[in-house]
């Protein structure tokens, strides 16, 4: 509630500052001006073509990156020699800003959708690789032992311990990956493209159209926030057993009276 009030206050003062010409509306247009650009974009339907392209690229990168990252992560965690090759490569990719590869993808794959999917894929893949790789390695050996001593075989151990344990890591990885998927798509378009929100942004920048730039930024932020919220909900449900996602109504648990023997029984 406080945050909402602060946001409203910021927007109002921004609007006033812009109208009173304390700031140059050419550099920082008022929220109402940005809003009307957004409205125009939506009304003419012109933006939807670009919007669809970007979302498509991001989703394709997310799905492919998650699949490949997860498979590589699982394979590396179970097969030592593979890890020795793959893990340092992933660590390197993780350490450098991966978007520097964007120009290379344009040369290799052209200015079409493929180079954006590739960049998005790369960003997501590294995150998901580490999520699954660490997920498998961080499995609690006590739980494995527990299932084994209760009569479980290999498959039971995988089903009861590995799958839930790794999926917890994957769930948190996915939330990060969604943002990365869009970063990859938009940055890729920014470098070279003929359509997409990144292309529109680049166009707005080259024509010094601050209102359009802000409107597009708002649009991308809104989409990512929506996806964040969605994945956050999914994560909360999936990891409902975790104390931090504990359902409120369950919080204080009274200790039941227990099985104290009757005094007569005791003596």
């Amino acid at each position: 509630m406080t945050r909402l009030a602060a946001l409203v206050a910021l927007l109002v003062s921004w609007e006033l500052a812009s109208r009173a010409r304390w700031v140059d509306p050419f550099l920082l247009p008022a929220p109402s001006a940005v809003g009307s650009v957004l409205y125009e974009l939506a009304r003419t339907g012109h933006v939807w073509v670009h919007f669809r392209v970007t979302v498509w690229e991001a989703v394709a990168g997310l799905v492919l990156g998650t699949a490949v990252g997860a498979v590589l992560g699982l394979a590396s965690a179970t097969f030592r020699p593979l890890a020795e090759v793959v893990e340092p490569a992933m660590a390197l990719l993780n350490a450098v800003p991966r978007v520097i590869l964007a120009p290379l993808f344009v040369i290799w794959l052209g200015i079409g959708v493929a180079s954006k999917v590739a960049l998005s894929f790369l960003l997501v893949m590294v995150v998901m690789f580490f999520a699954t790789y660490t997920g498998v390695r961080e499995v609690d050996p006590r739980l494995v032992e527990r299932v084994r001593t209760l009569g479980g075989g290999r498959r039971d151990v995988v089903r009861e311990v590995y799958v839930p344990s790794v999926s917890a890591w994957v769930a948190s990885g996915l939330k990060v990956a969604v943002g990365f998927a869009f970063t990859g798509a938009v940055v890729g378009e920014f470098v070279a493209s003929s359509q997409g929100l990144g292309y529109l942004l680049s166009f707005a920048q080259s024509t010094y159209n601050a209102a359009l730039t802000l409107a597009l930024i708002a649009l991308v932020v809104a989409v990512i926030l929506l996806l964040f919220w969605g994945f956050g909900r999914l994560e909360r449900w999936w990891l409902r057993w975790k104390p931090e996602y504990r359902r409120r109504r369950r919080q204080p648990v009274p200790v039941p009276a227990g099985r104290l023997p009757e005094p007569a029984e005791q003596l």
Partner: protein
Amino acid sequence: MRALQVCGLGVRYGQHRVLEEVDLELAEGEFVGLVGPSGCGKSTLLRCAAGLLRPDRGQVTVFGRPIAGPSPEVGILFQDDALLPWRTARENVALPLRLRGLSGREARQEAEVWLRRVGLEGYGDHYPAELSGGMRKRVALAQVLAAQPRLLLMDEPFASVDAIVRHLLEVDLLRFVTEAGIAVLLVTHDLEEAISLSDRVMVMSAGPAARIVGVHAVPFRRPRDPVAVRAEPGFGPLVEAVWRALRAEVARMGWELTA
């Protein structure tokens, strides 16, 4: 037939000899307490008996069969309650039943019965993180007992719970294993706990190359109340006797002991 027979057991980690020439026997339905200085290899011995660790020398047989890995006849309760955090209390207790081939519904029904037996009726839908330490212990106990073992191996099972809850758990445990005729090997630091629950108490020597150095018969018959038994006249002298044996071993580890 012996519930557990350990013959000439030897375990080493690299150059370090942990256990050497350990012999011990548990009759069917017998409750044996095992005490020893910390780090002497009690837990290692227990892991060998559980089939989780392959000894370098000697033999472990459970109900007449050489052990080669975890067996459904052997239940294990260690200090850390390793309940599956993503499963509710009921599902955790149902797990060994499902692993034995019961359908999900049957397993959940029987799990509910076990939860009631350990005083956790109505807590079946709670996740382990929603339960107190003592309650988690009870779930773990129900889980192990639901698997219907004939031999129960316990390593400081109640070390992390407070004294009151601990007494309640001891009362429950002793009643269950006495009724079901389960043999128990209990590793503990707590002499009084060992004596109040066991039929015999064994003392292990200080490591390295730890062995069993003394066996004390406990004269109190079961069923008995492990809390009330502490008031029996023979209890104090027995604690004293076991303590003396243990103290000799602790002294070997370099502790300066006075009086």
